[in-house]
């Protein structure tokens, strides 16, 4: 059976593009027992399922692997072997931006493929020539085959939040497969022969396998089973196959952010090209932020941040940003604009108004429901690299109930440690997360102390800023690629930095100390910013110039805070 995966793996970029992506729009059209792809986040794990893996049909061995039902009748006395497979409950990644969905929508229909990559040039003029409406994505005509795999797959369906615009594309040809939830299509993926450590909760994966649908399975319970009436009831009872498709997975592949991009302009980050994209992105952000250049720089660094490592409780590399100075009015202008911009730049974004009511009622942490034996997703169950905007301007005075207090604590933990506690009723389980947090608030947020606090000072009330598709695409690629660049500091510069840090500390005793944290977070942050700054230029090692830029940025920020 392992043989199946191998050829697929070897030539995945070529062969897999032909495999349709299972999503809500085509679920009706795809024939059961055909090969499909599914992209989603592992939301829950149901444990292992034991099945008759092999049985003897006469003198030949037959298998039930990759199927729900035996392909040949099994007689009761036959010799059998029991195998196991893992059940994963996968959902579309929470907070998918519309462009991710759209790109995958049209992707599967594209056929003419080659010739884009040759045409790519760093000049913006070149790019702008092809100013198709990016969001409708006709770009798929222009992507080189190597990147095709990346661009082709896209996500199976719309994210649950805020994407009504795209929904409704369900196929009119409703075949035998009935009433799937068209808005958000979860999928029960059955994994064979892969080590447990490979698939983790909240990871985003692409699964390639057989989509099965057996009408027999729909007639589910016969009720007489003591176990289902007792409490060993099957989780699957709540997930009938007509609601949740089954996928028997041959191969799976972890997806990083850039896998969601529709094509990438370049494979190697070439310095001047990167520099160009950076400039244009910075210009765009500046425009979005009403000509506030410092804020734009900070937002850029913030968008590039990512948890690289964990040392004790510290998540190295995170950079949460708190833009202060918003009022309710300005939030509706700049906040919205910023949100839209971020949504169009990053594949997974969420935003959440921080109100007393919201805090008191929302279920932020995922919670295990032992009645159904499912993990109920909370707002904070997010895939790695998700961007979360919290709008604190909506916060009024009010009383937090216990849920509210718990929720605030969760948010604070997420902010400080990048960890979310999952509620398993009898105990809490801490899960590491990697979420970029942006807080918009009037004054410095005391509830959610961010790493970087910057008073926002727009000078122009900006009219809506539009970006063309080409540049958007370049920026997406830029953000996705550069954030994962490796980073080093050579020993000489290390010395310089150390000296600078010491000097800064000698000068200002409050530096290196921080009211809420372990003493050196501020200095720590500088280093994070330095790393991000150099990454934003596509550099893998920190240069003195970038270090100076960070110091300059920090100086400007300080001035504002005063």
């Amino acid at each position, binding site marked *: 059976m392992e043989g199946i995966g191998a050829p697929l793996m070897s030539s995945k970029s070529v062969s897999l593009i032909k495999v349709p992506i299972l999503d809500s729009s085509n679920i009706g059209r795809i024939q059961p027992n055909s090969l499909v792809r599914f992209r989603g986040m592992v939301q829950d*794990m149901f*444990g*292992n399922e*034991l*099945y*008759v893996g092999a049985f003897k049909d006469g003198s030949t061995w037959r298998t039930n692997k990759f199927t729900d*039902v*035996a392909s040949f*009748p*099994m007689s*009761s006395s036959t*010799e*059998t*072997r*029991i*195998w*196991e497979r893992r059940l994963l409950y996968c959902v579309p990644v929470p907070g998918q931006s519309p462009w991710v969905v759209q790109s995958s929508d049209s992707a599967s229909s594209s056929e003419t493929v080659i010739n884009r990559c040759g045409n790519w040039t760093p000049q913006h003029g070149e790019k702008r020539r092809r100013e198709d409406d990016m969001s409708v994505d006709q770009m798929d005509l222009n992507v080189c085959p190597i990147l095709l795999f990346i661009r082709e797959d896209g996500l199976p369906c719309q994210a649950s939040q805020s994407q009504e615009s795209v929904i409704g594309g369900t196929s009119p040809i409703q075949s035998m497969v009935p009433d799937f939830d068209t808005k958000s299509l979860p999928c029960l993926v059955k994994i064979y022969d892969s080590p447990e*450590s490979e698939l*983790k*909760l*909240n990871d985003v994966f692409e699964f390639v396998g057989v989509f099965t649908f*057996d009408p*027999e*399975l729909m*007639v589910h319970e*016969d009720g007489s089973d*003591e176990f289902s009436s*007792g*409490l*060993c009831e*099957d989780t699957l009872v709540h997930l009938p196959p007509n609601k949740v498709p089954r996928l028997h997975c041959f191969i799976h592949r972890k997806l990083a952010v850039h896998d969601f991009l529709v094509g990438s302009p370049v494979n190697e980050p070439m310095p001047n090209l990167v520099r160009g994209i950076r400039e244009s992105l910075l210009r765009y952000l500046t425009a979005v932020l009403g000509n506030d250049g410092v804020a734009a720089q900070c937002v850029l660094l913030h968008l590039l941040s990512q948890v690289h490592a*964990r*040392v*004790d409780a*510290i998540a*190295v590399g995170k950079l949460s940003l708190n833009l202060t100075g918003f009022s309710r009015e300005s939030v509706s202008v700049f906040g919205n604009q910023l949100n839209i911009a971020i949504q169009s730049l990053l594949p997974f974004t969420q935003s959440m108004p921080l109100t007393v009511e919201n805090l008191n009622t929302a279920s932020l942490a995922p919670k295990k429901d*032992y009645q159904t034996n499912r*993990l109920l997703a909370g707002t904070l169950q997010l895939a790695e690299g998700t961007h979360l905007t919290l709008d604190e301007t909506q916060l009024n005075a009010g009383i937090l109930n216990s849920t509210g207090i718990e929720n605030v604590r969760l948010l604070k933990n997420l902010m400080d440690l990048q960890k979310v506690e999952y509620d*398993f009723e*009898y105990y809490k389980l801490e899960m*590491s997360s990697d979420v970029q947090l942006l807080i918009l608030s009037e004054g410095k947020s005391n509830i959610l102390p961010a790493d970087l606090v910057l008073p926002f000072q727009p000078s122009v009330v900006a009219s809506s800023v539009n970006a063309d598709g080409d540049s958007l695409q370049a920026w997406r690629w830029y953000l996705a690629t550069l954030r994962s660049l490796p980073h*080093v*500091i050579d020993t000489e510069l290390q010395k310089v*930095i*150390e*000296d600078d*840090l*010491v000097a800064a*500390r000698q000068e200002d005793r*409050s530096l*290196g*100390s921080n*009211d809420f*944290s*372990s*003493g*050196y977070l501020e*200095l*720590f942050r500088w*280093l994070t910013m330095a790393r991000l700054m150099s990454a934003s230029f596509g550099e893998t090692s920190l240069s003195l110039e970038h270090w100076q830029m960070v110091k300059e940025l920090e100086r400007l920020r300080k001035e504002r805070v005063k």
Partner: protein
Amino acid sequence: MASDSSPSHRNEGPSSPTDPYSSPIGNTNSSPGDAHRRRRRRSSSNASGFATPPPPHSRFVATDATPTPSSIQSRRARRSSRATPVATPTSTDEAPPSSEGGEADEADEAPPMFVWGTNISVQDVNAAILRFLRHFREHPSDTEGKYMRAIHHIIEVEGESLDVDAHDVFDYDIDLYTKMVRYPLEVLAIFDIVLMDMASRINELFDKHIQARIFNLRTSTPMRNLNPSDIEKMVSVKGMIIRCSSIIPEIREAVFRCLVCGYFSDPVVVDRGRINEPARCGRQECLAMNSMTLVHNRCRFADKQIVRLQETPDDIPDGGTPHTVSLLMHDKLVDAGKPGDRVEVTGIYRAMTVRVGSTQRTVKSLFKTYIDCLHIKKTDKSRMQAEDPMELNNGSENMNEEVPLDFQDKIEQLKELAKLPDIYERLTRSLAPNIWELDDVKKGLLCQLFGGNALRLPSGANFRGDINILLVGDPGTSKSQLLQYIHKLAPRGIYTSGRGSSAVGLTAYVAKDPETGETVLESGALVLSDRGICCIDEFDKMSDNARSMLHEVMEQQTVSIAKAGIIASLNARTSVLACANPSGSRYNPRLSVIDNIHLPPTLLSRFDLIYLLLDKADEQTDRRLAKHIVALHFENPESIQQDVLDLPTLTAYLSYARRYIHPKLTDEAAEELTRGYVELRRRGNFPGSSKKVITATPRQIESLIRLSEALARIRFSEWVEKHDVLEAFRLLEVAMQQSATDHATGTIDMDLITTGVSASERIRRENLLSATRNLIMEKMQLGGPSARLMELLEELKKQSSGEIHLNDLRNALATLASEGFVILHGDTVKRI
């Protein structure tokens, strides 16, 4: 006692009859007993011996409806095809009672029988079990075997089960152990037969079924590693019960009554999960068709319960969700555990087909798994910290101590650790490793965690063993971080913030129970952290009222309450770890500690160690800090921390030490203590100076004793050695040098702490007082015109060389006013 021979002269091979009474889920724990009992009754009526033991099947046989998988399935299928429904009333005689007498011979005569599909000889196993039960002795000196004694006991109390320690089996007969684990269904059945057989030999009237409950397997399987190869094997699984079903009555024997004539049928036993309703009345005279109806209250039911077991957090790998497994409990085991209990379960892992549709093929391709429970053990009790005062409130930190074996291993490991020469430093390093520097503070905290010995003299005097520590320091010196860390580490502890704590919130308060209307005492933070550590952040921001409550707690270690008719004294044997910001938010080195902290000296003196965490502008430290930060960012983070103990080990180490190590002072150490204390006090005498500075108070010597005890504990040593005492002195000095330095003279001055005023300061004040007095005597007339303060100040400044502040003058005048020497009116002074 019966002879050695196995009583298994069986006419039915083990492969023949499947238990006809098995339930659909396969566990019919009590059925064999019933069957045997009945059969035995029957046979004993015509034979004085005992009946043939039933074939080795009994409790765990699945029915045809839900065949167990794999090879076993087919094995069972075959077996059941040949099954003889032994106990159905009509066919009882098919199993002819064995001839009694001469068992020994028969054992030899009987042809060897094997468990189907294996080379396990039933006779061999039978004999092995018998040998084990008879001859296993815990100590060679025991006259009677452990299990023989147990069996006698069971017979006496009419018990139903015999707990068999698998370790004993292993020690006695490895082969038997292996067979038991690999073929539990068969071997346990034989086990039960042997047991019943023995019981009835000992007491012929004893006809209850005794069930062997195996526990304490040598290996325990992590829940997520249960896989198809474990099916039908005996496994041991640890976890936490999350749900229990209600008790399900499972029918064992049904009695029917004829609606026509009222005839009661013989009890009908469950046959492959079903009760066969008699088609016609059994009475010859009636024979009415379809007239039989079930009589519920004459049926026999057994309890059954389905329990869900979930992995405990410590078994869950990174990025996984907890696995769960179903347990099937029968009879006595029902309700043995409640949701939330941590248990270790020994049982047989089984799979059952899922009846998905009506179609044959779907039925066969999936399985549900469960564990047929044999034995359940609550692991909470055996945890290392069972009665430990320092019991961990966070269960996840002590996974390994749950099994006695692991427990022993763990202790050995800890002892090994304790032997390391650098254990003290190592522990210090492991404490809050992400907090930079502050080694001496960490050492103090370590001592606090380990604690000294509490002493209660026969006279009733009490000496606390808890060490109280106060951290005072500039903002951003990781005080709160340290506090949080200790809170996390401390076995029991409450973390409060001074600003948010009221006096009653800290101690105890009286409340009316809303339901009963009774007044009840609700414990506050200090009482709740009895035998733990109470961490109080923002100590300086606490209201005075709340702080004064601490006086009693910190020395007497009790909280006395007298309100609303409740007079009580509650134990609050807690160490207090407090941290405070200096009053001006930044430490002013020119002021004394007292002035900086703004805490009443009475309270302050109750802290054994007071650390000043000052953010000194020290380039060395800064550079190290900078290096550290840079390294965190750009080096492999793993390489940064060297040989520190992880949190679970640290907690285990701590718990063990607190529980089992009670160090005593050696003579040498006691001498050193005395010597050092005298030295400390003598230091107050300046050569050539008349002023006396008290450098140490009796409280300090108590502190010293506690500290040295804690230090000995850290080494797992029962004796406080001289070097412990020396280290304790060093710690105290380090702490005092920072906090009790008289900034005017630069010496240690405990007066600073006990009165808030240093000796030199006192002398200065006295000088000023007398100068003022003299001045007023000279310049002012009795009852004369009043003088302004400023004038006096000018005069004084002229006279003395030193700097005099208006405030000092005011203080001096206030003193004079209290003597009745002057009257102070706002800014004017009048002599009277």
